[in-house]
């Protein structure tokens, strides 16, 4: 006789669906530049709004010029940023000077707006140590090439702030591919365990080189990975400057008030290739997808919003474009004028006091360089 015992049904799928349902995308401005959620509109003055637009336009020009300078061989390593202006600059706009930024290799714009001189950013691209000599008082490290390393380091910076009793946050960025790294999880988990003031931003631009987001994880959002660390996670429209600003501002407030870290996923897109080192996006991306995302352009929607408010026009935009081009020309000139690197420079930068092997090699290279 068959057992009549009822088989207990634990609905694990339902548990997953419940979790996913908690990560709805925060949006304030739609593609046309219309406010879709009044309750979330940040308190920004007209000056602040136009300043944010100014930075976004400037950075779009910086990207166009950087690609061109790279093609001319006047820049080296460059990871295009067009499309990510809201994600990069509106998030930065929510920070204060004392906040510390740990950028990835694509996050040069944030450290420029935080105080890194443009010519140094160009020297970073070319491969010159002066580019990474961050000026005193500018709280950034050079762009991190090892994907994920900036996350564990950010937990340490944030714990440092907490121990010093400073009202400041550590902010770090990675991409969608980076969220698969062990250091990504360790970073958010450490910051959570110490309730450290850190903001972890994942710029989900849909592709890690040629690998689409879906190949990184079965998780429907990256924001939900915050659950593994027991910290808040937020999914935001990364093409919407007001939404990005709002969620970062809120995360910062919580962090400096002892509320611990936040993970923020910005849903965005890079219009260009992964880097200028031979990546060809037409091999893995369709022009349909490109044009779909171009409709979401952060500049277009923010421009419409500001024009409708009567605080932006073509003249202002052209002014900033000319300014950007002028600054870039000067910065490249200054980079050109930077003395070439010598082996003795590289040796001198290794330790505070040179060990005997390097003292010996220093003398050898000094002799060579004097000829």
């Amino acid at each position, binding site marked *: 006789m068959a057992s009549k015992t009822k088989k207990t049904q634990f609905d694990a799928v339902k548990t997953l669906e419940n979790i996913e349902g908690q990560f709805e995308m925060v949006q304030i401005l739609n593609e046309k530049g219309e406010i879709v959620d009044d309750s979330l509109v940040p308190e920004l003055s007209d000056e602040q709004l136009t300043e944010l637009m100014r930075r976004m336009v400037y950075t779009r020009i910086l990207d166009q010029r950087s690609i061109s300078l790279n093609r001319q061989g006047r820049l080296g390593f460059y990871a295009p940023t067009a499309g990510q202006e809201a994600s990069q600059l509106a998030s930065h706009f929510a920070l204060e000077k004392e906040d*510390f930024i*740990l950028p990835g290799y694509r996050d040069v714009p944030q450290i420029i707006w935080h105080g890194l001189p443009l010519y140094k950013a160009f020297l970073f691209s070319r491969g010159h*140590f*002066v580019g*990474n*000599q*961050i*000026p*005193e008082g500018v709280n950034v*490290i*050079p762009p991190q090439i*090892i994907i994920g*390393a900036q*996350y*564990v*380091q*950010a*937990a*340490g*910076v*944030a*714990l*440092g*702030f907490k*121990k*010093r009793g*400073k009202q400041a946050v*550590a902010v770090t960025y990675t991409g969608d591919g980076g969220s698969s790294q*062990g*250091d990504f999880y*360790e*970073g958010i*988990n*450490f910051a959570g*365990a110490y309730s450290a003031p850190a903001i972890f931003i994942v710029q989900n631009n849909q592709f890690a080189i040629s690998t689409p987001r879906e190949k990184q994880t079965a998780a429907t959002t990256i924001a939900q990975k915050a659950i593994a660390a027991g910290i808040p996670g937020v999914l935001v429209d990364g093409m919407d400057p007001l939404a990005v600003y709002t969620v970062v501002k809120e995360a910062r407030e919580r962090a400096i008030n002892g509320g611990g870290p936040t993970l923020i996923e910005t849903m965005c897109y890079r219009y260009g290739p992964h880097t200028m080192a031979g990546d060809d996006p037409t091999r893995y991306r369709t022009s349909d997808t490109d044009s779909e995302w171009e409709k979401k352009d952060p500049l277009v929607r923010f421009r419409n919003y500001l024009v409708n408010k009567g605080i932006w026009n073509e003249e202002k935009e052209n002014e900033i474009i000319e300014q950007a081009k002028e600054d870039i020309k000067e910065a490249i000139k200054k980079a050109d004028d930077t003395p070439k690197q010598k082996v003795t420079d*590289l040796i001198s*930068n*290794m*330790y*505070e006091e040179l*060990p*005997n*092997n*390097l003292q010996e090699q220093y003398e050898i290279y000094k002799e060579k360089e004097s000829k």
Partner: protein
Amino acid sequence: MAQMTMIQAITDALRTELRNDENVLVFGEDVGVNGGVFRATEGLQKEFGEDRVFDTPLAESGIGGLAIGLTTQGFRPVPEIQFFGFLFEVMDSVSGQMARWRYRTGGAFHAPITIRSPFGGGVHTPEMHADSLEGLMAQQPGLKVVIPSTPYDAKGLLISAIRDNDPVIFLEHMKLYRSFRQEVPEEEYTIPLGKAEVKREGSDLTIVAYGAMVHDSLKAAEELEKEGHSVEVIDLRTISPLDIDTIIASVEKTNRAIVVQEAQKQAGIAAQVVAEINDRAILSLEAPVLRVAAPDTVYPFSQAEPVWLPNHKDIIETAKKVLQF
């Protein structure tokens, strides 16, 4: 003066620096209330508080990143990696990041970090606890690698390591933690990094060693003495950078040398010592410089340690080959 084991001398050095410098932070897996798996941090959290001496989640890479991040806020981190076989988890933070921190920022930042970690065989530990991986660290520009063999050296070298403004890997041999006591001054003192010490003077043969092999070398030297050979034993103390001057001065005096390490022959740093002697003192040599090292296999299953690990008999055998060349 007090009679201390090496582990007590290490705790004493940590206590000294926690008192001296409020930026010193000690952290790692179970180093807080537990006082460390070997009691190296015993009593420190009680004396200095959870803010200075604290536990971390179980993730070596995170510990490395935490240390680097803390340096940006002016701290002087002294993290612990529970066993050095776990280095592989934190290799990027160590070799890819902190070792390069000063260089990659052109001196704008630096990393005054001392990583403490136990290693070494002869105490029947499970897998990946006893491996000698100092060779990996010695190949990384930007690091200094220190391996004490006595309680006195351990205290003076650890204080120097903590005060150094660049990253130092401080490797503590497990077999030496409590194997003997030595007079150690209670007050603070330092021993310069990068300086070897002649632990025994001799005129016929130089033995260059470090870690537990220093003691096997001293034992071998005593037995060789009975057979009429005068043997000099150099304890490197710092394996990167090497104290070339002390090594070469000794070889120029004795004209014969061997290099002794516990690591496999293809690992460790013995080959580097041999190359330096060949470069700088070949005309003084009466015989080739031979190496005593472990076989080039994975670190042995614990029961096989006695037949695998180099010991004083291997040292005597190799010394005689060189003496009778």
